[in-house]
């Protein structure tokens, strides 16, 4: 690491230290703190200090104050002896945790703000990481991601769908379901409920499959061809809008898709040209039909196979793109609420579910609210914090509010300017 980088890191650590000195009282310990494992990622060497355990919040805050980690985590699991090695901890159960991160969602910004550089030939590019370097074929890259508004809005949409399933389908109450902004590119949802604590990885995997819609079969939700009484003809029947669970979701997804789909969208899901023409021609009738008979057997010329493709696509739009690994891992470390994110200097914070739609992470999650800093920015996109937009910057010295400057420093897009 270059001298400049080390200096910048030291500077960020100093700022984090100042923050923790002032805001220790805001640190909320997780429930049953004495049964949780804690882990701290250190600035120096990016080393993870694991297997920490605390009897109460005082021990935890003292560690934050003295260690000043770049990131602080606790286990979703409860252990008899959290301070021991993994094999000797004795697992007692775990909360149900969901992570929605822009990395797992295809977004309309196409991640154009993310940059990568090939570790071998140094060639740089923008957007989603390529499979291999277009110049030399290397597979290793240095990545710089950016928390853009489009990414976070997409993550929010997925989170809304997730919360709907947790409440409507799984019946978790608002009290048990806590929503957090991660401090970077997404949201976390923690469910704390005695009934789910003992679920093993396999059971959690089934919940993940439910949320993402993996293995979903529209025929098992009633999209089937039924024989008409006394006749040889079969007629397609299917779910209705108000039905609970995935059946209703398939119906609603189908309706919403057909109300906005262009012929191109239909072609993308491999509907035949002739069928597309029929669908376009009868669009209004189909949309109207949900009020009474439902559309499944309404229009001649739309065969059951096409309906199945449309329904499957409709279902896909209703699934929530969560990180599969986080939820199935019953020993996962998750970021501690109200601590700083080492990649942004923003804080992880709880977000009330009511009013989530209007939650603005670039306003509410700002930890450093005072003063300005002089920094030298190498390359940064245009961004917004609170109501102010900044940048884009390229190789220039700027004086920015502390939060904006720290964001660029944490992202490795800038270095500190020493006042001499």
């Amino acid at each position: 690491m270059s001298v400049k980088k080390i200096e910048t890191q030291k500077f960020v650590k100093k700022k984090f230290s100042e923050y923790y000195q002032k805001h220790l009282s805001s640190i909320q310990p997780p429930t049953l703190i004495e049964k949780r494992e804690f882990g701290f990622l250190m600035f120096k060497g990016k080393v993870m200090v694991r297997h920490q355990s605390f009897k109460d919040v005082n021990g935890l805050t003292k560690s934050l104050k003295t260690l000043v980690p770049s990131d602080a985590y606790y286990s979703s699991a409860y252990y008899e002896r959290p301070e021991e090695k993994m094999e000797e901890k004795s697992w007692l159960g775990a909360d149900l945790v969901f992570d929605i991160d822009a990395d797992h969602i295809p977004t309309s910004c196409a991640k154009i703000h993310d940059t990568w550089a090939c570790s071998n030939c140094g060639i740089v590019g923008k957007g989603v990481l390529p499979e291999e370097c277009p110049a030399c074929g290397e597979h290793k890259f240095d990545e710089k991601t950016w928390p853009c508004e489009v990414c976070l809005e997409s993550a929010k949409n997925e989170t809304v769908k997730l919360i709907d399933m947790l409440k409507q389908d799984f019946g978790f109450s608002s009290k048990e379901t806590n929503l957090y902004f991660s401090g970077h590119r997404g949201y976390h949802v923690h469910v704390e409920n005695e009934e789910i604590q003992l679920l093993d990885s396999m059971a959690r995997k089934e919940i993940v499959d439910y949320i993402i819609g993996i293995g979903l079969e529209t025929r098992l939700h009633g999209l089937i061809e039924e024989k008409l009484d006394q006749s040889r003809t079969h007629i397609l029947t299917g779910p209705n809008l108000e039905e609970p669970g995935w059946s209703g979701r398939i119906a609603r997804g189908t309706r919403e898709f057909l109300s906005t789909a262009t012929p191109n969208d239909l072609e993308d899901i491999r509907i035949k040209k002739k069928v597309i023409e029929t669908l376009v021609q009868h669009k209004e009738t189909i949309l109207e039909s949900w009020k009474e008979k439902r559309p499944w057997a309404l229009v001649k010329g739309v065969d059951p196979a096409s309906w199945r493709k449309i329904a499957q696509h409709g279902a896909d739009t209703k699934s929530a793109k969560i990180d599969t690994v986080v939820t199935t891992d019953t020993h996962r470390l998750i970021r501690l609420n109200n601590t700083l994110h080492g990649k942004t200097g923003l804080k992880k914070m709880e977000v009330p579910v009511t009013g989530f739609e209007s939650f603005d992470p670039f306003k509410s999650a700002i930890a450093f609210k005072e003063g300005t800093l002089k920094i030298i920015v190498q390359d940064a996109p245009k961004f917004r914090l609170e109501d102010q937009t900044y940048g884009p910057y390229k190789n220039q010295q700027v004086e920015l509010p502390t939060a904006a400057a720290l964001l660029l420093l944490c992202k490795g897009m800038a270095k500190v300017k020493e006042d001499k």
Partner: protein
Amino acid sequence: MKELDLKIEDMSEPILNRAEHRIEEALFYALVSTELRKEEIEISSFPVAVMMVASTADKLMKKRYALAEAKRIYELLEEESEDKILEVTRVSNWKIILVDNKPPCEFALFFTDCLRNATRFQAKGWKIVNRVVSKGEVYLTTGDVTRLLQEEVHVHTEKKLDVKEKIVLPQSFTNRVERLKQAFTEHKGKIELKGFPDEVVISAFPPCVKHLYGEIASGNHLSHIERFTLTSFLTNIGMTAEEVIDLYRSLSDFKERLIRYQAEHIAGGLGSRTKYIPPRCDTLRTHRVCMDMDEICRKVRHPLAYYRRKLRTIKAEAPVE
């Protein structure tokens, strides 16, 4: 036995006979008959049989016995009314109610009670994503609930049989156990579970592992779960940790110390000394590692089962020299 307040020495001859008979039926006919006329004997002989089987430390014997007892429950309940089934679920503390507004479903069961057992089933219809799930309840038919109860008994019996300490039983018990063990060994004959051959046969890899293997061989990066799948698969079919490490050498981010640690850990040489096996097929599907499923994939639930099956086919197709 403690639950029923029974003492070993109080076990009468008829109870011991019935216990031995239960095990015999399970081992040789894969079922346990029901002799409800002698209810007391029927109830007491179950924990006695469990103790006898547990004392054998024979995995296959335990597996067969647990399955047969579970099937017995299914057959018993199949003819019963919904109210009676509801009563039985109370023993397992299930959160379940009768419903009349969701035909053909007659029951609504709390989802954790359902998942605890249903994750062991492979049929797509058992995935909760294909069920009506509302307000924490999964809607089920009477047949579904009976099947779940069978599984609950299966798991419960397996747990009871899974005793780590050595069980010391009175002579009247051990004689019977020895007799059963001997008969079972003869019954099994020479059909022992075979390990894998020494040589690694790449053409017998399942499509998912073949893909991962190809990726590594061409120096491509694998995610953690992909790496775990490949490494655990290879160490389980007979590759040494050393050979696995060599395979990873072509990676641009190859760190020998790290790869060696992972490979040796997965192979059971470090830490907890647990030898890890690759994730099951449906887990691989969840994490999007599963791909290009073929005919054999549809018949197996585990990548190692695929390998075993494919090896047999390859062997069968080998030219006669």
